[in-house]
């Protein structure tokens, strides 16, 4: 999976000509300085440049698509109000992502909801369909199959501790790098790697339990392993 999210490339076209030729961080610094001086167009440009990542972050933590836009707007409002106090010692993106994470946790605390809760467990039939995806590395093509597979995955993710779930989604689905996650969550890079690796083990442990027989799961995973293209080993 690429670390560059799909939306970033599309956003490159919207960058003003004066910013071309400099690094993204330098461009951000310049825009922040202008926005701190009261330039609304500069802040609007900052929103445009970071909206996709903020959406990914909020979506990865909350997994409630209907609330993402509202919370993202709230995040940019908070960033605008506190921008004068931002001393640019860290990257604007790191500062903004920290605001985003805090806003998501505030939202979850206020609403007193877990991101998603499924009442029932997976049926054997559902698990065997999911097994096909994992074993053969063949994502379902029909929209209805994709939707069902997504729902099955959500149910499996639901069994994980909150932090494991967020790390897996932000890394594997939303495309954040380990270094970005460490910066956002105020964790050591090595700690993020260890937690991610353990979270992978936990979700597959649950998956294997649902399959029923460890031997069957091991065989099917082995088949997938041979066909898998991810990784260097």
């Amino acid at each position, binding site marked *: *999976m690429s670390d560059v999210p*799909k*939306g970033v490339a*599309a*956003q490159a076209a919207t960058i003003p000509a004066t910013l071309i030729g400099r690094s993204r961080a330098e461009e951000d610094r310049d825009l922040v300085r202008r926005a701190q001086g009261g330039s609304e167009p500069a*802040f*609007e*440009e900052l*929103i*445009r440049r970071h*909206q*996709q990542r903020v*959406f*990914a972050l*909020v979506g*990865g933590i909350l997994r409630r*698509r209907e609330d993402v*836009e509202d919370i*993202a*707007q709230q995040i*940019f*409002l908070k960033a605008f109000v506190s921008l004068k106090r931002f001393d640019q010692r860290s990257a604007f993106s790191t500062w903004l992502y920290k605001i985003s994470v805090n806003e998501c946790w505030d939202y979850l605390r206020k609403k007193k909801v877990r991101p998603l809760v499924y009442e029932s467990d997976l049926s054997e039939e559902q698990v065997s369909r999911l097994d096909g*995806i994992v074993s053969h*590395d063949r*994502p*379902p093509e029909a929209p209805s199959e994709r939707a069902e597979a*997504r729902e*099955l*995955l*959500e149910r*499996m993710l639901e*069994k*994980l501790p909150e932090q494991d779930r967020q790390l*897996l*989604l932000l890394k*594997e*689905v939303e495309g954040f790098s*380990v270094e970005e996650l460490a910066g956002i969550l105020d964790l050591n890079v*090595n700690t993020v*790697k*260890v937690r*991610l*690796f*353990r979270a992978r*083990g936990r*979700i*597959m*442990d*649950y*998956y*294997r339990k649902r399959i029923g027989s*460890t031997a069957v799961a091991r065989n099917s*995973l082995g088949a*997938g*392993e041979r066909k*898998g293209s*991810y*990784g*260097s*080993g």
Partner: protein
Amino acid sequence: MEAANHACTAYEAKLEDYLSGQLSSTDSRQVAEHLKSCAGCAAALQDARASVRLLRVADSTPDPGPTFARNSMARIRAELATAQEARGFWQPFVALAWRFAATATIGLAVMAGYDVVKQHNHLPQSTVASVQQADMRDLFTTEADRVPVNRDEVLVMVAETEHGKH
């Protein structure tokens, strides 16, 4: 939930890097060697690879599109205007309160200063000493030592003296 396949603690972070192809060739060779002899790490790596395939099913959150930045700025302007309006309504009251507080503080300071100066002027050291002296005399002088101040007291003293003789 306990993971069934335990990797060696010292290799967990390296295996995560190995999975995403971010290890140097030297480290990568070292991990590959370790995997040949460690069933726990090999099984954990298999699980990690399977988790990548499993999570591919999920869709990433879509980009909100070009209108989002414009809408967000509009909301920011609206929120700031509302806050400004709220501040505008209370502004005269707040200003009045501040003026009152400042006037009261200055008034208290002037009064306290005046009082200190007045006390200082009305009670010089010599006065205080003389008052204390007078008080001492009142306490320790006897009736016989007292000097009459008017005619009645003279008469009373003469009468008392005469009475004493008898």
